[in-house]
């Protein structure tokens, strides 16, 4: 009987991973969404009227991120003053991230949907556990639209363009999605500019090496890349920013930025790995899980190719952060954690892909299914033992009521602002419960005085006084 039970559990192992992940890890983040409230910068994007004027205004005066500007204009619940819809954004984003992981694994790693869901769950845990900035990833609309949404689009681009390459004679559906994603990425975040180009060259190489015969489709993809980035770089806002740096020596400036990227990435990788027990046990769980997956895609790679891929992965992480160090120059700071969200996502994806190309045979006989279960249990345990784990912090914020109190305090300030007479003065109370999982820091303090005006304009206030209320 016990043997029967053991075998049953082991056989349904991918399902167990998926369900336990949804219950143990995703639940607190989904519940935290209820307590998500607008940050000051969100108001800056909510006082510009209309969708088209909003998009046009940002494109002409600020930057070339036409897709994120479109999201600010058209998918912004604050434009209709809906705080309930605002708190739905994180749930939608979490769903989209999970789906993009699923598509990625279906395209690259396995043909089994059950296993793809399990891999997605494990990847999501890796993505969450040492995420550089959880509030900026999920609970801060402007930031999520700038960092997370383009990353999701990039994953879709990888999946659909790879399917297009491998696909039948006329892969119009994956081609159309790939083109759409190219525009979303280009108009989303410049951090993904170089990775998009690198991916295009990888597609070209694969097409030539494996005779996929998709030259015409890749030509269309190339046209899309050129047009999308033409829109970005011909934006008057970008032209003004580039003109400011014209007196600088471009080579020295570029090398300096690259060195800074390397130093940032080395520091970050050390931080992401050090003491990360859940990542260690999770990696073993992934490795063991792959041994039970009969539908796993096997890439025939010799040792030099494996080393080449490893070097490429490490170097490409620099490319994710380089546009930031290049654009900001001497002001680039390692404490600016939001720009590390995208490199971190690809760091954990690379980790999983590296595990998949490890040697396939064990040196000794093991019951991999039972071991997988064993290491997965350890991974969940480690999630709660690691004091830097965002999952643990999410639970603390929920059970200590910190999230609830944070929400109440911000909503109280909002109610006061709404109920103040037009052109009146309102006293904003400092937050006493800045829940770590939710609070971005972009609230009423000295650093954010520029956003006070936007908040005042949104609620029609004449003056704001900030004080420590009793």
């Amino acid at each position, binding site marked *: 009987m016990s043997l029967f039970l053991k075998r049953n559990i082991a056989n349904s192992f991918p399902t167990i991973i998926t369900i336990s992940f949804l219950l143990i890890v995703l639940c607190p983040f989904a519940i935290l969404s209820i307590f998500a409230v607008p940050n000051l910068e969100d108001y800056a994007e909510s006082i510009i009227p209309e969708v*088209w004027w909003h998009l*046009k205004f940002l*494109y002409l005066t600020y930057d070339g991120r036409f897709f994120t500007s479109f999201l600010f204009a058209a998918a912004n619940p604050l434009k209709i003053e809906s705080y309930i819809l605002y708190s739905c954004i994180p749930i939608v984003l979490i769903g989209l991230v999970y789906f993009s992981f699923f598509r990625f694994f279906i395209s690259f790693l396995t043909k089994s949907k059950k296993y793809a869901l399990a891999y997605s769950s494990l990847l999501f845990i890796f993505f969450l556990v040492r995420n550089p900035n959880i509030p900026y990833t999920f609970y801060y609309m402007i930031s999520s639209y700038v960092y997370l949404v383009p990353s999701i689009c990039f994953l879709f681009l990888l999946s659909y363009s790879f399917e297009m390459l491998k696909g039948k*004679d006329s892969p*119009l559906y994956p081609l*159309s999605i790939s*083109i759409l994603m190219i525009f979303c990425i280009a108009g989303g975040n410049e951090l993904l500019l170089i990775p998009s180009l690198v991916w295009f060259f990888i597609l070209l190489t694969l097409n030539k090496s494996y005779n996929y015969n998709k030259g015409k489709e890749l030509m269309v993809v190339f046209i899309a890349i050129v047009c999308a980035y033409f829109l970005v770089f011909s934006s*008057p806002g970008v032209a003004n920013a580039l003109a400011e740096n014209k007196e600088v020596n471009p080579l020295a400036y570029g090398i300096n930025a690259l060195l800074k990227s390397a130093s940032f990435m080395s520091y970050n990788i050390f931080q992401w790995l050090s003491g990360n027990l859940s990542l260690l046990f999770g990696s073993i769980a992934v490795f063991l899980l792959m041994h039970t997956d009969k539908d796993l895609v096997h890439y025939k790679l010799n040792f030099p190719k494996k080393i080449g891929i490893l070097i490429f992965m490490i170097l490409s992480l620099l490319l994710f952060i380089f546009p930031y160090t290049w654009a900001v120059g001497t002001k680039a700071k390692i404490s600016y954690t939001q720009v590390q969200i995208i490199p971190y996502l690809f760091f954990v994806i690379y980790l999983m892909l590296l595990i998949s190309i490890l040697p396939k045979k064990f040196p000794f006989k093991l019951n991999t299914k039972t071991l997988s279960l064993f290491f997965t249990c350890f991974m969940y345990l480690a999630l709660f033992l690691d004091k830097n784990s965002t999952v643990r912090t999410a639970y603390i914020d929920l059970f200590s009521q910190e999230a609830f109190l944070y929400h109440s305090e911000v909503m109280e300030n909002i109610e006061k602002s709404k109920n103040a007479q037009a052109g009146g003065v309102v006293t904003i109370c400092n937050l006493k419960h800045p829940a770590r999982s939710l609070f971005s820091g972009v609230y009423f303090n000295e650093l954010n005085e520029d956003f006070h005006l936007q908040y005042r*304009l949104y609620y029609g206030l004449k003056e704001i006084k900030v004080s420590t209320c009793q």
Partner: protein
Amino acid sequence: MSVAIKYNTVLILISLVIFGFTLLFKLKTESLFGISKEMQNQLNQYELNKRKQDISIKSIKASCYDADIVLDKLLVDITTSKNPCVINFGLSLQEQSRDSALFKIVEKIYEHAYIFENESTLEGQTTKIYPKANPKCEVAVALHFTKIDDKLLLEEIVHFDDYLSCECQ
């Protein structure tokens, strides 16, 4: 028509749609050949209207390199003006505190502001604000900013008397 030709036609059509979208976007945003003067004015007016609601003595003083020097220079210009309207405005300032006088002057600039343009200078930036009431009047009040630690700070305001005279006509 064979399937291959049909497929090629679809690919060409997709490429044309991509070009069409790019061109349409540039046309609709009026940025195909740079921003037109009218569009720039519209953008500036929007920014100006937003800024009009942000006048406070605290923000004015914070944006000045030295608020006392800025005010002293303005008071000299106002008191030496020959235009009675400007002189009257100057007299009304005499009953005010220095902070309040500076606030009233900036408020006056914004009250009559219609469009503005920014020019980069060696020291930092000059913002010229043109009044709205008299279309023939092309006298702009000029705000000279100096760049200190990557921050633009107001060093002086010139031609305020001419700007106000223009409005008083």
